[in-house]
């Protein structure tokens, strides 16, 4: 049989000459290499069907850890309610839990001097009026934590306790209002504002206290470029007078990120200069430089340990040498403490890491395996296509396989703020300062970075696919310096490019859309001055600007979409949906979206309909009539940083309703074209063929053009209810997974759409 190239699945049935025999032969049991999109019956015309696909990302995301006695306490992130769990370092089990009455995340905790009380501080949303500091009696862990104090700053990012028990709190969160240093009385909860030593600061990320002095580290993040550089204030506790003691050697640092009292030293973490400091508490002008960025500095004798993501490092004050303690990827450790002969911290990946400096070995305990109370978290971004829906969480993404309804949690450091699926492969923009990542579920390999960010371009905002040029496009923001960047990545070659400040030095690239090989970049500007709604048409191949326009949206741009004729520009703060005619580059209409939009949002165009989602509502705008209508009210997605939606090849819209992923099929889409496309790789003869089938469910004819990696085929007219099948010889014995694109044009009104269908990798034999 081998010279006939037959496989078990392929049987010669008969020939012109042997019609009387051989008809008992049947295909074997194996199915075609089949990657059909699993799609049920679509909605009835006019019907909007919502399917609940379950929680978007279920895990125990975390943002802080602290060892007290034999227990590692771990603070949650983006879970409701915010919670702290106790991890027993002996049994390696989660043994206690308390929930907080306020906050969405816990970035800092500290224990009272006697170790009996845990002070827990919160990051809060703007409308959260609950406590910013809670207390939990560790002697009775079954009794929930209670609110202790509310400072005048929204966020608490660091907390310290002086030997006398007084609590000191640093944070901020509402720039341009500068952060204050706050003192909290542990008994009464009384709050005292010690002032704002740097009016130009926008964040305080570090605080430490001794019997005589409180150290308060400040810096800047938002808005871009407007704030002061890092400062380190030493407050005399008696006089409450601050003095900046940050050495001039590091005066241009962006922020003080970590402070720790290490016996007679103050360990100082800094963002920016690539250095950390060991300052003499008695004479701060005397200091030693560790030539590496680090946070959470700890000390044993002459060895200084610190977190250097994704590992832990040690600096020897004796030899002046730095040693990396781990080759295992620990992600970001949100805490580091000495516990006996090991260093202990909780990783953004959701595990507890115990690192033994003497042997450089480590033990990792997955929190979900030992009783951590996982929950659906507020999510970051979404991407749908090729049979998968991805939802970005904290330190992980979840993948829903629509065919099997199975959900896989994939470890990925940082937060996937947005993503797009190309040929079955996911590309994400990863916060913080991680650029663009790639994940191929068929590869069996973990995600990998494909484009590193340019320094400072830390916050990806929008990702889309330019099919004309074969480029993944990414817009980003520089949180600290202002402005933003535009990145392209070509999967075919692995080449990446980044252009910094393609709009101007203040506007980030909030949104990216593409049509006909042109990228459209939408700006937003967090500083008080300058343009904030500039749209730039950009040649993503040449890296050059083609033209620019400004629809004059007063609060900046939230999102872009285009159908190739119009560019739809959603203004922030529900300020309107400006429609730019791409031919004349003029604003032809501003659609009033005040009834459906809130502030941030997402837009996507499909089949001549623009879909938008806000914090409250999924809506559509007919690209032909510019008529606005509501698709789903009260969708109230559980987004961490602005709502998102994505639309798969079949036109199904994926977004969040609460903390659950939902699929929305819009039978009321104004210009929907009812066709179904499937593709399969099939072994015929000596090679693999690719077959694609289009089914026309319209009431009239459509014309069809099928495009694959192995050829094209056009059908001038496919009648209502009928099919078109195209087969292409790949001339390969095996082929990788891919997609076919089918351009469909409805004869009745000329409306057209391009549908894609995925096929799996397959081989002959």
């Amino acid at each position, binding site marked *: 049989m081998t010279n006939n190239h*037959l496989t078990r699945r392929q049987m010669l049935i008969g020939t012109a000459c042997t019609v009387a025999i051989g008809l008992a*032969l049947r*295909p074997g049991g194996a199915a075609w290499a089949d990657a059909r999109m699993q799609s049920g019956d679509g909605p009835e015309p006019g019907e909007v069907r919502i399917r609940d696909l379950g929680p978007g990302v279920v895990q125990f995301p975390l943002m802080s850890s602290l060892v007290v006695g034999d227990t590692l306490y771990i603070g949650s992130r983006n879970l409701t309610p915010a919670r702290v769990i106790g991890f027993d370092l002996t049994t390696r089990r989660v043994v206690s839990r308390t929930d907080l009455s306020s906050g969405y995340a816990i970035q800092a905790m500290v224990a009272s001097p006697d170790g009996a009380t845990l002070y827990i501080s919160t990051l809060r949303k703007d409308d959260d009026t609950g406590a910013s500091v809670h207390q939990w009696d560790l002697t009775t862990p079954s009794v929930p934590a209670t609110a202790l104090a509310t400072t005048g700053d929204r966020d608490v990012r660091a907390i310290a306790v002086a030997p006398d028990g007084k609590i000191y709190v640093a944070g901020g969160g509402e720039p341009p209002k500068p952060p204050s240093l706050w003192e909290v009385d542990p008994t009464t909860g009384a709050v005292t504002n010690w002032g704002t030593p740097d009016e130009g600061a926008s964040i305080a990320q570090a605080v430490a206290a001794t019997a005589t002095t409180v150290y308060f580290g400040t810096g800047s993040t938002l808005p871009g470029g407007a704030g002061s550089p890092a400062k380190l204030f030493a407050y005399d506790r008696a006089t409450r007078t601050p003095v900046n003691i940050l050495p001039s050697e590091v005066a241009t640092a962006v922020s003080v990120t970590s402070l720790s009292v290490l016996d007679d030293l103050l360990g100082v973490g800094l963002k920016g200069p690539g250095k950390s400091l060991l300052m003499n508490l008695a004479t701060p002008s005397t200091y030693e430089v560790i030539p590496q960025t680090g946070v959470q500095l700890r000390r044993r004798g002459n060895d200084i340990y610190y977190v250097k993501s994704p590992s832990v490092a040690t600096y020897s004050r004796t030899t002046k040498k730095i040693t990396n303690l781990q080759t295992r990827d620990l992600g970001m450790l949100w805490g580091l403490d000495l516990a006996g002969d090991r260093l202990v911290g909780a990783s953004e990946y959701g595990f507890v890491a115990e690192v033994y400096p003497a042997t450089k070995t480590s033990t990792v305990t997955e929190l979900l395996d030992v009783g951590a109370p996982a929950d659906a978290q507020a999510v970051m971004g979404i991407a749908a296509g090729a049979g998968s829906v991805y939802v970005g969480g904290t330190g992980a993404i979840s993948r829903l396989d629509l065919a099997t309804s199975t959900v896989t949690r994939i470890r990925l450091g940082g937060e996937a703020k947005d993503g797009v699926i190309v040929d079955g492969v996911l590309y994400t923009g990863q916060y913080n300062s991680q650029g663009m990542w790639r994940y191929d579920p068929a590869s069996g390999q973990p995600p990998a970075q494909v484009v590193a960010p340019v320094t400072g371009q830390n916050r990806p905002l929008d990702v889309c696919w330019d099919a004309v040029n074969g480029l993944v496009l990414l817009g980003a923001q520089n949180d600290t310096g202002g402005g933003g960047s535009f990145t392209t990545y070509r999967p075919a070659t692995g080449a990446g490019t980044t252009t910094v400040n393609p709009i101007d030095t203040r506007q980030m690239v909030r949104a990216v859309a593409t049509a006909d090989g042109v990228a459209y970049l939408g700006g937003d500007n967090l500083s008080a001055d300058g343009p904030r709604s500039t749209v730039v048409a950009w040649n993503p191949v040449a890296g050059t600007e083609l033209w620019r326009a400004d629809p004059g949206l007063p609060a900046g741009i939230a999102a872009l979409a285009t159908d190739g004729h119009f560019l739809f520009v959603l203004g922030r703060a529900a300020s309107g949906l400006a429609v730019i005619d791409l031919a004349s580059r003029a604003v032809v209409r501003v659609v009033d979206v005040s009834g459906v939009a809130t502030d941030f949002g997402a837009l996507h165009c499909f089949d001549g309909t623009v879909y938008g989602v806000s914090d409250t509502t999924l809506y559509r705008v007919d690209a032909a009539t510019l008529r606005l209508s509501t698709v789903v009210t009260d969708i109230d997605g559980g987004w961490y940083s602005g709502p998102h939606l994505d639309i798969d090849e079949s036109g199904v819209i994926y977004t969040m309703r609460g903390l659950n992923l939902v699929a929305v099929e819009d039978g009321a889409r104004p210009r929907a074209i009812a066709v179904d496309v499937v593709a399969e790789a099939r072994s015929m003869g000596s090679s693999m063929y690719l077959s694609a089938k289009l089914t026309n469910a319209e009431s009239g004819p459509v014309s069809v053009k099928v495009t694959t990696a192995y050829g094209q085929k056009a059908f001038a007219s496919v009648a209502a209810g009928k099919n078109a099948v195209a087969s292409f010889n790949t001339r390969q014995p095996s082929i990788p997974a891919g997609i076919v694109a089918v351009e469909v044009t409805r004869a009745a009104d000329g409306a057209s759409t391009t549908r894609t269908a995925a096929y799996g990798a397959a081989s002959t034999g």
Partner: protein
Amino acid sequence: MRTHKSPFSGLRLATAGFGALMLTVVATAAATAADPVGDDSDVDVNVSIAELTAPGVLAMSVAGTATTLTESDSADPLVREFTGQLPTVTVTDTRDADEIPADAAWYVLGTASDFVGDAGQAPIGAGHLGWAPHLIDGGDSGLVAEGPEVATVVDDDAAPDNVGLVDKELLANTWNSGEVAPEGSWTVTADLFLRTDTTVAAGDYSSTLTLSLFE
């Protein structure tokens, strides 16, 4: 369009069964009944045959066993081209739905032998013969596809399909046998074209094109 008297006018294209069956077919087609020997002895033989019900059959037939290629205009002065038509190929399926496995899909492949000269000329490789399949009656549903055009090795485009009918090439296939079976039968043909360079030796050549139906 010019029409030349072809020096290849004797070219034959036989349709035959798969592989070794082809030889049997050719022999059968050439055979005649032996002359009777002795007196005839008539014997009445009676049989009653019921109409066939099940199982149905999937089968292929070809409306002819030979075709001739004639020279036509060549777009390329360095290439001689000879064209013809594949006799109509009919696939019939009389099976009931429950006789057809759910994922079955039939297809027809074709492959050609080298063109052999009748007077000792060097053979012309099968890579010089290409085809462009066309559905004549692909059925109402649209679930039958014609195979892609396969051009020849002398076509200067380096496209992957320019390999000629050396290997098995797709004439037609269905997306799914069970879904199209109610249509009963489908017909397909193909434009055939032989392309050679101008130095090819004159004379008659023949090749055998073997078509095979699979499921």
